[in-house]
């Protein structure tokens, strides 16, 4: 009895999913979500190993601050100022990290909470929106559903994701060299500062992208969890990178599907899926004794 109940439940789920999938905007949203997840996982390994994890976090708060400026200015296309603003912050953070009066992590903390406070202040004081707390919440934790993305946003996300993937593949060996041993790379004449800058810019782009999917507070999870999970099991840079990309795509896909079916917020559902995956990978890593 209960088994047939379950089966019909399953059928009902699949029917519901099929119904959703018939709409083109659902398919677009799905594709964009998966592409964003792919991009955000790529540089995760580098970020974790270079001890840059918090730069991602700091930048996402900056993105929130800039986003609120865009909201106050009533811009329809927020990307126009959010992207350059975040890239600028990334470059500045990296510069301060190098010749620091205020050390790296403190600078990041300063910029990140500062941007958060100013963002909220601006939105609260000047926003013309009737649903202020709703606006703030969706900027912080992502839209309730990825389906609210406009056609234009979908296009921009898709283009930027493709660019990020191409840049990553093209500079893969350089990124490895700079991450593994900056000193040696520099001595061999590799332009380490230029590549660090490139990494920072790509991170900024990824964060602006991921903001659409999971909101600014949850971006770090999207960047770091797949890399950490993958490092539990795999031992070479290539395999870690490839697996974290696969894992991230997998989690994003399931997160989006579950959020549509269960009506949960898409960002936190994806992050929850990433956390579960991390748990499973840790267990596998422990039993196979890789760490």
């Amino acid at each position, binding site marked *: 009895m209960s088994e047939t109940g379950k089966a019909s439940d399953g059928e009902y789920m699949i029917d519901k999913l099929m119904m959703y999938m018939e709409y083109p905007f659902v398919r677009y949203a799905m594709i964009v979500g998966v592409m964003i997840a792919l991009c955000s996982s790529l540089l995760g390994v580098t970020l974790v*190993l270079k001890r840059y994890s918090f730069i991602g976090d700091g930048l996402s708060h900056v993105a929130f601050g800039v986003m609120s400026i865009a909201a106050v200015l009533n811009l329809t296309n927020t990307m126009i100022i959010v992207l350059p603003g975040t890239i600028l912050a990334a470059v500045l953070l990296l510069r301060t990290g190098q010749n620091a009066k205020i050390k790296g992590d403190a600078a990041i903390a300063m910029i990140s909470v500062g941007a958060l406070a100013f963002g909220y202040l601006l939105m609260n004081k000047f926003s013309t929106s009737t649903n202020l707390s709703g606006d703030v919440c969706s900027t912080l934790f992502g839209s309730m559903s990825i389906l609210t993305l406009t056609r234009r946003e979908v296009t921009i996300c898709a283009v930027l994701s493709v660019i990020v993937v191409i840049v990553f593949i093209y500079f893969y060996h350089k990124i490895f060299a700079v991450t593994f*041993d900056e000193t040696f790379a520099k*001595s*061999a004449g590799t332009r380490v500062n230029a590549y660090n800058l490139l990494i920072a810019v790509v991170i900024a782009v990824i964060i602006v992208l991921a903001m659409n999917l999971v909101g600014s507070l949850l971006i770090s999870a999207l960047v770091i969890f797949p890399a950490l999970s993958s490092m539990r099991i795999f031992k070479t840079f*290539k395999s870690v990178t490839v697996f974290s990309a696969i894992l991230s795509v997998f989690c994003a896909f399931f997160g989006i599907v579950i959020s549509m079916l269960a009506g949960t917020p898409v960002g936190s559902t994806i992050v929850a899926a990433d956390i579960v995956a991390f748990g499973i990978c840790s267990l596998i890593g422990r039993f196979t004794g890789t760490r």
Partner: protein
Amino acid sequence: MALITAKDLSVGYGGQTVAEHLNFKVNSGDYLCIVGENGSGKSTLVKTLVKLIKPVAGEVKYGDGLMPGEIGYLPQHTVVQRDFPASVKEIVLSGCQSRMGLRPFYNSEEKKLAADNMEKMGITDLSNKCYRELSGGQQQRVLLARALCATKKMLILDEPVSGLDPKVTAEMYELVAKLNKEGITIVMISHDIKSAVEYADHILHIGNTIYFGSKNEYLNSKAGKIFMMMQSKDPHVGNR
């Protein structure tokens, strides 16, 4: 002309000088050991030689067709490397980075070079192993193979035997000596003066007294005698 000529060179960080008025030459085929007390600026000096930092004063000239990017450098270990997921092969290949310029992938010639150098260092069977799971001696061989990919002429090694046990240390010295016999110029920082005078043919002593000359002259010099005596009393002097 010498591969490297230092003229009245002063080195340091952020405008602060740690060693000054250094004059020395490294000729093709030499084996130069840099010795000196802790904090005397040995590491700072080699970082200046591989152009990681700018000299505070004076100059370094590169001759005999040696470009600064063509020096194989073996730096001290960093924190990042301790839990880095990378295979031996990936790391050795990264030694070819200066050859590839803006080209995105390594070509077959570079892959062969990496394979040859792994063979030379006796780590071919480790090529798919994870770097962080290797022993200290094996890790140094990997980094040495990487440095060899970057150069045909000169290796600069920053305390390559620190933290290694005596047996592995001896093997490491033999390996470097063998490379030197094959024609590669060696510049090595060492805190182990006994091995330094055993293998090297030139000594650069920096610190309170500065000395540069051939090994035999050094052993008879005042600086050499004092330093040898200090080390034989306390083998840990200069050890870090």
